[in-house]
């Protein structure tokens, strides 16, 4: 939505958590409260029926736009998509070394 990437280093853990939950709610049309209740073990791909391959692609593209990161084909694996914690750890790792 917003095409202004967040400046590097500006994003602390809490802000990333909120942003990622809002993004998932936007893509899947979830109630924001439902997304806010996600914890590290909450299942994503394979657990949420709305999250098919097209939706995953939309989710990753939106993560690139909103977080200002680039996600390669090779980055995408079952682990990063299986749980909310996996996705958050992936986003953190992408942001961290910059």
């Amino acid at each position, binding site marked *: 939505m917003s095409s202004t990437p967040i400046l590097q280093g500006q994003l602390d853990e809490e802000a990333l958590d909120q942003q990622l939950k809002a993004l998932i709610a*936007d893509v899947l049309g979830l109630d924001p409260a439902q997304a806010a209740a996600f914890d590290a073990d909450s299942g994503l791909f394979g657990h949420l029926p709305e999250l098919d391959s*097209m939706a995953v692609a939309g989710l990753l593209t939106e993560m690139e736009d909103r977080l200002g990161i680039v996600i390669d084909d090779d980055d995408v694996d079952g682990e990063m998509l299986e749980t909310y914690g996996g996705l958050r750890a992936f986003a953190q790792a992408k942001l961290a070394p910059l």
Partner: protein
Amino acid sequence: MISTWNISASGDGSAGEELLLVFDRGRPARLLILPAWFDEANKLRRFTVEVMRRLDAAGIDTLLPDLPGCNESLTPLSEQTLEGWRTCAAAAAESLGATHVLAIRAGALLAPEGLPGWHYAPQSGPKLLRGMLRAQVIAAREAGNSETSEALLAKGRSEGLTLGGWPIGAAMVRALEAAEPALAPGQTAIAQGQLGGPGLWLRAEPDDDAGQADALAAIICGGLA
């Protein structure tokens, strides 16, 4: 309100009759709608028509022509080119007597230069391709096949390819790689943030949002007042 329009035989030869959804009551303001493409077209179809209904109530005619290769068209999608669609969009504007244009997402790549109007959440060709290639790669992995975006794109450039069920010709793929929406004089961009909610094309399943339709219609009414 369901009609047809005819594409003349000039241009790239994509002559034929296509469907046309209109609210046409012969009023002075006539807005050509160029909808989103491919999967986003489905996600945004109801929203697009909801905006048209609101504009009709506000005294504005709206014209939503199908382009060749889209929806019920008899012409194969795989034969369509960016230039061909641009020619068709301009031909539709002229034959339907449009005074303004509302281009939605990748539809902005086709907005006729001569019409004032709006680009709603315009999408570039490279971003459109990137999202569709990514979906294809992920779907292939689920099926146990390994594909890469680079390899798919290389194939697409030379022989075309099917992404998410949409057969896209090689000329279209090559053109999209460099296609950026450009605002012509009198055209302005409407950012998604102005509609007060997340874009409906993001949704995994088609959805509706009356508030966003109200907001977009209000922006257009304000611009035409």
